[in-house]
């Protein structure tokens, strides 16, 4: 029964001290790289912001998971994902998850072969890293599901049972348990590995077939007994694992098992490469570790270097930039939004909304709007015709403007689409307080109180509601309340100008509405309206005409043949006039060939309204050192 010893292996017999030392060194290197890469490059807080599943303490939330296959793993994954809200903690746990996976993989591979497996057990961790690069993947669900599946497999292959019937019985008994706890993907892996182990490693083909049959039968039986939709379960799993690192992660284990089975046979053959006919065998022969476990440096260093390179190459920098903009906006860190904005290389409605909010809050909207990416056709307050991704961003904008009802609309769209995310719950609580529905606000806060890391904040807000149902002491509520519209406008569309005008009708000192309205006029080339509304500057404390308004006024003057505009006692800055003359000179130079002059004009005037007026977009470079127009 030589096979038995080969199957269960002889730990330590195939490695020497140098190999162990190298292995430890590699482990430390992997740990350091993995942890810091996840923490600083990926940033788990952004992961959570992108696709963090919601989690709530309490039986009610748990009940949603116990009646579906894989529900318990999803529940555990949702809990662990909450730690991503604290980046260093999330990175630590993810690193621990990766190491756990490596450890279990190593144990499993050593159970299936006595050949030294060198660094093969790190491969899943590397794939996991590549998976984390793709923001939006439910990584903890994958980690827990795989870990559970591997632990089950490890336990199964370690069984000292020799009887095929007994082994099949154990396999059959464990199968429904794993299916229920971990779901479809993990169960398929368990079935596959069990079948491979029995039929290829142990050469018990009948038993392997039995594992496959049981693997196919269990989900079907469970589906019938518990009236679940098996096709839906499979579809849900497939749809939840769409990207290649996840697929590779699942495929690694059966392929690795088959590979070690093949390597074991090569070792047993003990012949040189020349003996084998096919190139594949020759390569495998060259790559195989030798019996003494003599160190082959490339076994350790190459995969590590390759993974580091792949990690950086496959990193989704665009997605990170988008997430940073949204994340910082959700925290009210407007300067950081504007720092991240130039890294966004795709036109994204939600990012656009957040950048404009940031511009307003940092007092730069009227002077640096066109230093950031703007393009014709995009509304400042887009509706659902632009999709659903921006619901949260537009809700926040509308709320700050004072359009509370419309903010409520989009907040509810976001709630249904994204789930009971803390930020949305808090926003709906605010909205309901503003609408004098404190009891409804309590419902949202009571839900929020059950979310990890939000209990204290929710509790505090609830206590405030008890004594002050209108939250009059809350700064944001106190700021918004006077801005709320008082005249009803009813429509299914969201005409930007009308909504902003309505806000100014309700409160002419609504600065945000004013700046957004002027921005709207600029973006839609309505220079006449910029001129008509320039007098509104007197409702605020602007000391001078903001930069972009000056640019528009000069342009308007030029287009109207030099017609004078009443600036209500505010002069246009001489520097702006001089720049305009330079701009005119340049455009005259490229008369009729404006596309040719685009690059030149972009270099010198790419952040001005004039450039936007001609080319209907600005490219969004780093804001130049424009002297702030004092307001």
């Amino acid at each position, binding site marked *: 029964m030589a096979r038995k010893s080969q199957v269960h292996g002889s730990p330590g017999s195939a490695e020497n001290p140098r190999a162990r030392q190298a292995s430890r060194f590699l482990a430390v290197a992997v740990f350091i790289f993995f942890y810091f890469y996840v923490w600083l490059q990926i940033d788990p807080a952004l992961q959570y912001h992108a696709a963090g599943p919601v989690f709530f303490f309490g039986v*009610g939330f748990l009940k949603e998971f116990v009646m579906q296959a894989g529900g318990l793993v999803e529940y555990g994954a949702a809990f662990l994902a909450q730690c991503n809200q604290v980046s260093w903690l999330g990175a630590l746990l993810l690193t621990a998850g990766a190491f756990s996976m490596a450890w279990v993989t190593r144990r499993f591979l050593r159970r299936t072969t006595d050949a030294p497996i060198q660094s093969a057990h790190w491969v899943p961790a590397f794939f996991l890293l590549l998976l984390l690069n793709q923001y939006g993947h439910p990584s903890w669900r994958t980690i827990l599901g795989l870990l559970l599946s591997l632990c089950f497999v490890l336990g199964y292959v370690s069984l000292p049972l020799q009887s095929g019937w007994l082994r099949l019985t154990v396999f059959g008994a464990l199968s429904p348990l794993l299916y229920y706890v971990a779901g479809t993907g993990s169960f398929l892996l368990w079935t596959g590995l069990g079948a491979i182990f029995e039929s290829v490693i142990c050469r018990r083909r009948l038993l392997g077939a039995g594992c496959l049959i049981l693997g196919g039968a269990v989900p079907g039986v469970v589906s019938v007994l518990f*009236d*679940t*939709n098996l096709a*839906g379960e499979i579809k849900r799993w497939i749809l939840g694992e769409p990207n290649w690192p996840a697929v590779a992660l699942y495929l690694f284990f059966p392929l690795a098992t088959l590979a070690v089975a093949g390597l074991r046979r090569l070792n047993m053959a003990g012949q040189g490469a020349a003996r084998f006919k096919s190139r594949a065998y020759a390569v495998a022969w060259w790559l195989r570790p030798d019996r003494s476990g003599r160190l082959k440096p490339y076994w350790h260093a190459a995969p590590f270097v390759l993974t580091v390179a792949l990690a950086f190459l496959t990193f989704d920098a665009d997605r990170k930039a988008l997430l940073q903009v949204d994340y910082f906006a959700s925290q009210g860190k407007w300067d950081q939004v504007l720092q991240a904005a130039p890294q966004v290389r795709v036109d994204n409605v939600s990012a656009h909304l957040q950048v404009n909010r940031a511009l307003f809050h940092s007092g730069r909207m009227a002077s640096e709007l066109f230093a950031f990416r703007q393009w014709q056709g995009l509304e400042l307050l887009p509706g*659902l015709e632009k999709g*659903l991704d921006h*619901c949260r961003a537009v809700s926040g904008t509308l709320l700050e403007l004072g*359009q509370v*009802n*419309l903010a*409520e*609309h989009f907040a*509810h*769209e976001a*709630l*249904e*689409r994204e789930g*009971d995310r803390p930020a949305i719950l808090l926003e709906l609580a605010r909205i*309901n307080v503003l*609408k004098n*529905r404190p*009891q*409804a606000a*309590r*419902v*949202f806060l*009571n*839900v929020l*109180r*059950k979310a990890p890391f939000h209990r204290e904040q929710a509790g505090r807000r609830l206590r405030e509601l008890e004594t002050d149902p209108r939250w009059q002491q809350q700064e944001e509520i106190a700021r918004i309340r006077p801005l709320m*519209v*008082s*005249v*009803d*406008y*009813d*429509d*299914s569309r969201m005409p930007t100008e009308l*909504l902003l005008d*309505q806000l100014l009708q309700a409160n002419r000192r609504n600065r945000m509405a004013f700046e957004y309205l002027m921005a709207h006029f600029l973006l839609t080339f309505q220079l006449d309206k910029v001129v008509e509304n320039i007098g509104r500057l007197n409702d605020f404390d602007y000391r001078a005409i903001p930069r972009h308004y000056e640019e528009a006024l000069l342009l308007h003057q030029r287009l109207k043949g030099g017609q004078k505009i009443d600036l209500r006692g505010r002069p246009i800055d001489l520097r702006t006039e001089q720049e305009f003359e330079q701009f005119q000179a340049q455009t005259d130079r490229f008369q009729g060939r404006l596309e040719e002059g685009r690059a030149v004009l972009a270099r010198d005037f790419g952040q001005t309204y004039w450039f936007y007026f001609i080319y209907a977009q600005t490219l969004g470079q780093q804001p130049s050192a424009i002297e702030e127009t004092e307001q």
Partner: protein
Amino acid sequence: MKSNPPYQLLIGAALAVWFGLGWPLVSRADAFDQATVEHRPPRMFPEYSGTTIPPNIAPLNFVLEEPGTRFRVRIRSTQGHPIEVSSRTPSVVIPLQPWQALLRANTGQLLYLEVFARTQPDRWVRFDTVTNTIAREEIDGYLAYRLLKPLYNVYVNLGIYQRNLQNSEETEVLHNRSFDHGCVNCHTFLNHNPDNMALNIRSKPSGNPMLLVRSNTVAKVAKTAGYLSWHPSGRLLAFSANKLSLFYHTVGETRDVFDAESDLGIYRVDSNTVVTPRAIALPKYNETWPSWSPDGRYLYFSRAPQVGRQHFRQVRYDIMRIRYDLEHDTWGEVETMVSARETRLSANQPRVSPDGRFLLFCLCKYGNFPVYQPSSDLHVLDLQSRQLRRLDINSDQSDSWHSWSSNSRWIVFSSKRRDGLLARPHFSYVDREGNFHKPFLLPQKDPAFYDSFLKTYNVPELVTGPVQVSQRELARAILQPRQVLTPATAAKPADKAAGPAGAAPPHQETPVADRPR
């Protein structure tokens, strides 16, 4: 006599134990019995006080909104053992079986709740006794409803559920996760019987069919319908075809619905045909909210002249009824039951009590979507005396989606009275004199359930038993139907169809994105 130190020690130890442990216990007991009387009723939620409850209702668990470190509630009636509930928290959870026994033994009697709160270690407070009445008549055993969050255009997670009203067990009838997260709505039962029901589906992959369940066999009907109502014979369904669009207000209630065009039709189940009798599908009028009388002789519905969207505030519906002869398939004349001109309000959702005595409906300021109207109130028309009155059980928020129990003694309706946003089912007892008693909220196992439940209860319907057809069967009927019925359209010469004679009238499909929830 010599002193006996061991004996004295024993006495001393006993006294020490007594004063250390026993006396406080006695003190606490005495303190409880000597509770200070607080001359007011306890604050509690839900407020189960002064109501009339069915003898087969689940425990009315509640939360005491009173300060205290310990609470006791004694529940008693004329007969049977009182139920004592002790709790360290304000949540009072009443054990099921003692509760059921107590109610069953005391139908027609008063139910008393004596509430105590310990405000200090040795001080108990006793509140005024809370009194409710146990009705003689039971309520139907199950309640079916749709659960969904306050939705606008996007819907991901919604479903139809059923609840055993006797023990608060809730199960899914059909959740939209089982068919690609489409929409499911307008579930309606034949004569309160769960074995026969109809509901609508809206699903991009599977279309907008109706599901027909008859004796627990499911068929997919390739017919898009709106609101449904079974004829009591089970042989036909009245349905509406609406052109609803959702729009928003910047002040007040955010959501609103405008019905641009709607007609009624009849789906004959036995012959799988659809007809649109002219009388209930007049041009220039919108007919909606069909509802058969229990004897099947009348079809009640709401009707209003068609107007443009800009006049939505002027849209006011009358409640009409039209006589129908099932055997001869003939229709009578339409008569007005509730006139918008007289009420100056819009009447919707007519539902006749199973005993044929009352017509229950909503009146709101305008339109035909009362759940979005805080002004919506329940009204009743006595069909014998033709007296119309507003019910006292209304609130200042939307009250709508009412339905009757099979014995006409209970109604259930959805009310947003607590917070103005989330509708909760409330029950009211209707006595033989036609008085609608103070409503009570659907009880839950967790008394604090509603404090953190974000979903709204929609279309609550009382049924006599659980829906037996499985969710799998219903989902399969949507996704991989064994039987698809494609109704033929019966030609009616007086139809308002614009096309050739006999062509189907142009029922407008409601744009999916615009349909309200």
